[in-house]
């Protein structure tokens, strides 16, 4: 039982790293991306291939996986981000399909439908992490979650966050204020993709295997639900949303009734969350936190002058 709870917590943390990245894209900047799972898939497969076929060290593979996902983010972002938001939604949806198809068909590298097994666990100071011992994993992941959280926090509380807020409010006005919108959007999208890549990499290293159909459209929707449920544009809320969604999807297993409840129920729940939240509580259960940059800055300057 305890083991199972630890497992859920581990999933929560891995998904949180990914959903925080998505929240940066959707919540803070107002762009709809439907391929966060694909970025995770890219990260997971990069790690799997680099560590099994390439015999790369996990930490290097982790970084590479993030970087590869980020690179894909740039590639998809540059053509679409100049355009209206809906195009991004469709392009990312299409991108997700492409990633899935490529993973399925690129047999020589991804082993196609079979997936990749036997991914070694990461080692640190001579200790090797395995999915048997969950507690060390939990601390490791917690460290990375905290790092992601802080990175985003610092970014949002700076002039970057202020510019993102302006872009979300009115792109035309923001560009008339000298803000290079495309640069910020591509930057944010890339950062979000990077987070997805990291999460995917951990996913692969923890499960020690990857399968092609894991990272499908429904997983992207699940991550989107985490962001929407907690509250768009609020990192803390996103983590709460992630906790709720992961628990909700694991609840049947937790209660031992997973065989009665069909998998579709979960997805129907996600669908309802999206519709219901948009109509009745678009700000999410916790809501957006409006930073007051003017006050923040004043405090800081007073602090500086002291």
């Amino acid at each position, binding site marked *: 039982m305890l083991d199972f709870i630890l497992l859920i917590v581990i999933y929560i943390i891995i998904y949180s790293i990914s959903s925080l990245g998505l929240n940066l894209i959707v919540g803070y900047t107002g762009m709809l991306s439907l391929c966060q799972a694909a970025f995770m898939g890219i990260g997971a497969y990069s790690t799997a291939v680099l560590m099994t076929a390439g015999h790369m060290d996990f930490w290097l593979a982790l970084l590479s996986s993030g970087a590869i996902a980020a690179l894909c983010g740039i590639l998809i972002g540059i053509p679409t981000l100049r355009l209206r938001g809906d195009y991004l939604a469709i392009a990312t949806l299409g991108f997700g399909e492409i990633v899935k198809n490529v993973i399925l068909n690129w047999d020589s590298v991804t082993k196609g439908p079979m997936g990749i097994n036997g991914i070694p666990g990461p080692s640190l100071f001579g200790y090797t992490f395995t999915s048997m011992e969950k507690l060390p994993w939990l601390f490791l992941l917690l460290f990375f979650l905290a790092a992601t959280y802080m990175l985003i926090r610092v970014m949002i509380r700076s002039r970057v966050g202020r510019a993102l807020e*302006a872009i979300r409010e009115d792109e035309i006005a923001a560009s008339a204020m000298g803000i290079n919108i495309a640069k910020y959007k591509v930057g944010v999208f890339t950062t979000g993709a990077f987070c997805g890549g990291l999460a995917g990499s951990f996913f692969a290293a923890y499960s020690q295997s990857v399968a092609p159909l894991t990272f499908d459209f429904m997983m992207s929707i699940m991550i989107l639900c985490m962001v929407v449920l907690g509250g768009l544009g609020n990192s803390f809320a996103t983590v709460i949303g992630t906790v709720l969604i992961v628990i909700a999807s694991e609840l049947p297993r937790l209660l031992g009734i997973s065989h009665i409840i069909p998998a579709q129920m979960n997805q129907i729940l996600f669908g309802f969350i999206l519709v219901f939240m948009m109509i009745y509580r678009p700000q999410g259960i916790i809501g957006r936190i409006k930073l007051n940059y003017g006050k923040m800055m*004043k405090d800081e300057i007073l602090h500086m002058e002291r």
Partner: protein
Amino acid sequence: MPLLYTKNLRREFGGVIAVSDVNFEVMKNSITGLIGPNGAGKTTLFNNITGLDFPTKGNVFFKGEDITELPAYKITRIGIARTFQNIRLFREMTVFENVMIGRHFRGNHPKLSRNRLVNFALGMVNLKMEEKDIYENSIKWLDFFNLLPFRDEYAKNLPYGRQRELEIARALATEPDLLFLDEPAAGMNPQETEELMATIRKIRDLGVTVVLIEHDMKLVMNICDTITVLNYGQKIAEGTPGQIQNNKDVIEAYLGKSDD
């Protein structure tokens, strides 16, 4: 040489010729009025100059350089700012934040602005100093418009006239050489309009060249040095307020031909 001029600028929307081969000139340190009946193409001309829209044909020159193809954010960075006919404030942001956004790109140290990321990594960008600069300048512009008491209000909660002022403050925070105002007095009462006239003169006295679209003839005739008149996309007249008031074509454009 004019500070800014367009050469045969033309903008077509499908079949509609919104701006038809217009040569428009703005002299340095002047206040230039752009008038014309509704749908004459005034806003379209603004948009084409400020990079929010691009001409079908023709060019825009600023300080002697061709800026026709530059996107909006670059236009702003070289010193042209603007306001919008239908106010486009960041409504859910505070008054102060609106002005800070105007100052956003100026926060970059001018010598380092090219490779911000690299310089940032090298520790060459002092974020704190930048922010201090943004802060102090924003205060300055809020003060200029007596908006300081409202600094923590959301922009959407300001009275209409105040919103128009805030939009100008935000534009000025970009430190422009040339400021375009699209109907700044729209929706203002006579007293507010009066104050606005004084403000515009004050802005000009700071060394900022002003171009404004306005339907309020009293305001235009009062403060403009030169006026350009558009009708159906074409420039039908330009000159001093006195010349414009007595121009036959202009009177016709506004009142319609006497025989129909």
